[in-house]
């Protein structure tokens, strides 16, 4: 299958030279299509020091269809849903929408984009509108809350 070749290649690249703050592994050695990613909160953001687990699901017809990226660690962020499962942790990434996905986008780009989003939330395209409001109007409170969540959910885990 064409997708396996590409995924293998991408995975190999990511494991050999991981982007800063991102570690990629297979959730299950036998399944190329389920990735487990650990992302460090970028320095200079309220998420610094936290370790966030992401679960990435690559469709069978990857790269023609976009992957799904889900934060399995709870995070206080305007663009990441903290809904109850199954919607928890879903990310609002424009590039991951079916209509905007481009097959030549690589997973490393997706992951870097996701990490960039931790650094610079995009309140205009928010999933959590309340957090977006707060981010816009009361940055201090937002940062405090985000740090609290990091402590609660994303710190001592590993």
């Amino acid at each position, binding site marked *: 299958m*064409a997708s396996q*070749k*590409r995924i293998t*290649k*991408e995975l190999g690249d990511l494991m050999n030279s991981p982007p800063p703050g991102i570690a990629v592994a297979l959730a299950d050695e036998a399944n190329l299509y389920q990735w487990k990613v650990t992302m460090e909160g970028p320095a200079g953001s309220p998420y610094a020091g936290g370790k966030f687990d992401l679960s990435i699901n690559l469709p069978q*017809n990857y*790269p*023609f269809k976009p992957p799904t990226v889900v934060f399995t660690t709870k995070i206080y962020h305007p663009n990441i849903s903290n809904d109850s499962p199954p919607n928890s942790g879903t990310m609002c990434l424009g*590039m991951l929408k079916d*209509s905007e996905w*481009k*097959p*030549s*986008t*690589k997973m490393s*780009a997706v992951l870097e984009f996701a990490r960039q989003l931790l650094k610079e939330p995009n309140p205009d395209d928010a999933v959590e509108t309340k957090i977006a409001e707060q981010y816009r109007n009361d940055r201090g409170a937002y940062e405090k809350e985000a740090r609290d969540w990091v402590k609660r959910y994303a710190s001592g885990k590993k």
Partner: protein
Amino acid sequence: MDDPAAEDDERTIELASIAAIYPELIVDAQDPYTATLELSVTPVIPLRILFAPATDGVPPALPKPPSSTEQNGVNVNIDSQVQVQQPALLDAHELSHLPPVALRITLPEGYPAVKPPVISISVTPPWLSSSVLNRLREDCARLWEELGHDQVVYTYIDHVQQEAEQAFGLAREADVQVPSDLKLALLDFDLKTKQEIFEKETFDCGICLEPKKGSNCHRLLQCGHVFCVACLQDFYKSCITEGDVDNVKCLSPTCGDADSRRIGADGRLLRRRKQDRTLNPSELLQIPIEQELVQRYVRLKRKKRLEADKNTIYCPRQWCQGAARSKKHPKPVDLMGDMVDESSESELDGDAPQVPPDKKTKKADLEFLPMSERLAVCEDCDFAFCCVCRKGWHGELARCSPRRQQELNEEEAASLAYMQKYSTGCPTCNAPCQKAMGCNHMICFKCKTHFCYLCSSYLMPDNPYRHFNDEKSPCYMRLWVLEAGDGEGVDPQGAHNNLELPDWEAEVDSDADSDDDDLPPENFNAFRGHRPFADEGSSDDEEPAPGQRRNRNMRIEIVNFARPGAQIPQWIELPEQPRAAAPAPQAVPNPPRARRRGGGGQQGNRQRNMINEPARAVRGGHAQAHGHDQARARARHQAPNNALRAGDGQFDQRPPPQPDGAAPILPLAAPGQGNHPGARGGGQQPGPVRAMGLERFLQLAIQDQEDEWDSDELDDEFDLVAVQELRRRG
């Protein structure tokens, strides 16, 4: 090389060393001192060439083979821009690869010391002018001189190469003009060379992330991004199969963005570019994608475009529903036709700003569309139809039917309403006719059809009156209904009075006046909508004809009820009697002649209104009360007549009258109508009515006419029960 001396010749040695540098150099087999070499012409800056139109006036536009159009997308664009700037000169193309220059170098006896090499230089096809060629030729002698009569071949070849890179200085001149008959050859050469170079290159496909030979890759025409053919096929095939035709575009993540940013200055341009980044079908074929899929792609794209266009008109035929032919979205004849469609589409997109207002006003616009523009022809089934009324095309001179409300002005609407109300259509030609007077046997003024004015039925010309004499006919005994004619000014009641119900008239009128004067609308409503028997589906009134007319007539009647100038007072002067005083003859058996109980229906209802007047007696109702006794007497005498008449006038599918248990008590008000609140409240002479009802019933019973008696004469509650009972039975 036969000549042994030649081997040692300086000239031979020189050519041999040149051949080492330029492996393409071919030494003439006949003449060891002659060599030919083809030098490719690849200017650093692509050379812009204008193809002069042929002098004989033949249009210069040579048909380009598909490959040229495809590969040359960029150049063609530039071409069109140039055309705009210099419309007279037309065809300009920028070429990066031009046919090679062929050098033939002969080293004569005495070279290099005495004689310069003899150069012959040519290009095939002859795209370089002879002056350029001459100059190049003379350059050799000049260089030989400059070198002090030394070996000049390498220097000269190098010089020509440099000249070629500079396009022989042609770019400095205003325009390079080349006869247009060379265009095809030059373009082809350019393309072929590019393709060869491309195929030799290696690309990293952005999808499978593997290096691929150019021969396995495809460079997208619009943006120049390169992907491997296998990946493009996979992706586009799945897009087309899934119907996601909008994604059939470059797969590079940044592709569209960069482009829109580039044109960003002009918002319109930007949007257009962004919208139309999907691949041209011809390019898909070239990748290659199977023809069936490309056809599907074209079909889907067109469908989307049609659906996006709110002005698209679809065929009204249920089984077809194709789009109507339109200039904007012509139906493709074949795939090649589509390509034209594609290109014109982007032009039309540029006009997009015009479209939104169209969309908003579309519905209304359609109504005001001139007749000449209403013809639409389905592109699939060729059905010609009117896009306003959606019927088969009726020609420009005929109006759409049914007429749209918006098209009617007030006057037209009024006359239409009048016609509906006061005319009957001929069953054959639908010509509306209005009866001025006379019986209901009509002969159409147009087609001579015999028909019934009341119900529009066909009548047998040999015996048209059978319709009115047949008991089963809805118009049984109704030949003279509306004798005075039909229309607003006509009093249909008069007809009834004269012919059918002569003895009703006074009563009817007086009733209406006496108690309905202040309540005509209620009466009206009551008659129209709340008649207790109306829902039995049986005949009504004098007019059992279809709904429209029935309602109409009822209205007329009602209007007549309220007619002024009737004798009022005499009916009201009945003595009061307590309601309770009226004994209810509950045990009366069901009358056997129930079937023919015509009066019980609408006429009954009508009379009920009169009866509501306490002074009034009864059902069949003509026993109106001038007084108790009078009423009784009248009822006695008239009831049979009325019963008969009413029965006759009524074809009767009606269920038998009220059950035994439903006591015949005279109604205080028409059931459920509430139009006589005073009477109902019992404040106004309720008693006599009851008493009279009872008396009348008894009289009827004696005369074996008790079916003339009606449950309407009952008390409200009883009446309801009775009606329900009736329904159950019916």
